[in-house]
């Protein structure tokens, strides 16, 4: 089993998703089933193949170094669950 309890919890930590104890088994089963399914790719020979990360054949377009909107503070804070003095507020972080 690739996705045993320990691996699942570690993966959950990495993805910042807490996984409840009673979900571990069924989730592990699902993920194992998916992993088994995608594992069939291992049979395909790809030694000489370049990877494709985007199918669009075009060079990267760029913009000029021009400032457009100066103040979107209201816009970007509009949906904030918690804010104070135009700061986003989160539970205390210790470095």
């Amino acid at each position, binding site marked *: 089993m690739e996705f045993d309890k320990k691996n699942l919890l*570690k993966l959950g*930590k*990495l993805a*910042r998703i807490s996984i409840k104890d009673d979900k571990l088994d069924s989730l592990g089963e699902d993920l194992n089933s998916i992993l088994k399914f995608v594992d069939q790719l291992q049979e395909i020979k790809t030694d000489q193949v370049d990877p494709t*990360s*985007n199918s*669009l054949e*075009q*060079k*990267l*377009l*760029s*913009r*000029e*170094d*021009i*400032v*457009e*909107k*100066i*103040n*979107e*503070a209201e*816009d*970007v*804070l509009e949906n904030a669950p918690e804010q*104070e*003095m*135009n*700061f*986003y*507020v*989160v*539970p*205390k*972080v*210790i*470095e």
Partner: protein
Amino acid sequence: MINDWNLVIGIEIHAQVKSNSKLFSSSPTDFGSSPNSQVSLIDAAMPGMLPVINSYCVEQAVRSGIGINAKINEKSIFDRKNYFYQDLPQGYQISQYKDPIVGEGYIDIETENNQKRIGIERLHLEQDAGKSLHDQDPKYTFVDLNRSGIALMEIVSKPDMNSPKEAVNYVRKVRSILRYLDTCDGNMEQGSLRADVNVSVNKDGEALGTRCEIKNLNSFKHISSAIVYESKRQIKLIDSGKRVDQETRLYDINSGETRSMRSKEDAHDYRYFPDPDLLPLVLEKEWIENIKKNIPELPDEKKARFVKEYSLSNYDAEVVVSDKATSEYYEAVVKGRAPKLVTTWVTGELFSVLNKKNISIQDSPVSADMMGELLDNIESGKISNRLAKDIFEDMCETGKNPNLIIEEKGLSQISDEGEIEKLVDEVLNSNPENIEKYKNGKTKLLGFFVGEVMKLSKGKANPGTLNKLLKKKLDN
């Protein structure tokens, strides 16, 4: 080297690109704006927002790459570096991993008695993160995204440095090059340029030690003392039979110590992968060549030229060129004047005033033109060097033009022999007994006569002429 321990130091410099707008958004990059006032929807990672690259930032990275003698890669890839942090809105940083825009390069730094070449691994473009304020509230952290998305160049050195001094000189040199290129303002206090320093210790013939990374050092002083502290800490650990853990540490500027970062709850796994929102960045050969052609004279070249053209010593030249504005100031003053005099005045008098006032040469109260005028008065003999210092002080205070000060205070030197002779005669006439003593062998009294004449002339008598006349009269 401490006892028989070697120090091995590698440095990652994060240099903010000097640009109007951010790397992937059109928000401004000004420092010190009110919280979240220069944050676009893209910087705040609102749903559905997409990055569009700033072509000027790309150009700045290429210019910087050329400045550090590095290979410019015609094709580079933007990757996502995935991790969660409150000041990283996307949940990933757009950076470059396997295919950076700039490859291997090097710079030369000065060491005690010669030069040393420090290898550079790469330079890549990435987004800066926002800022967190931890001290506003006991229970909460405040987040400001103004800095989020500003273009950063990460310059990674090889572990080629072996002392705090070398490390500092390396950062100084990189900073100087970037400032010459105008690709980064190099303002360390504001965090436009910061360094992560990797330190390890080992003994001759032994394998490299385990390294620790000290994050976010933003002054030369901190770089130096953090390395000193960290290397001692590691040596002490090993000497007492313990081992050094590879970890990220913070430098506490108050205690001067480094400490382990507590937030490293789980080992990072950044899951880098090519950003599917951005296609590969492809640079045309011709475009790169064109940029190369327009690279300004850099510190090393300028130094060589100053040594050659102005016969500066290696040391003086290094001092003068290390800062672009200083070198420009120097060159403006030295044109048509005696280099020795200019060097003494710029690196001596001017520097000491700037240091005292803690200001940069751009803010110097004495412009290059005014400095030139002052030195012209010395060279022409109109004023003495000593008087010039007084005038310079006055210039610094009032910002007045030296000629004006000389005129206003009637300070111009008396070089007319007839006029000086009158003063000499006056002094001699009122001191017959001292003349007697002098003639009887107490020649030290010459100084007394000089002083008296100077007093009478309010310090303006040309000392050469005065000496010559006095001697002539006394020795006859």
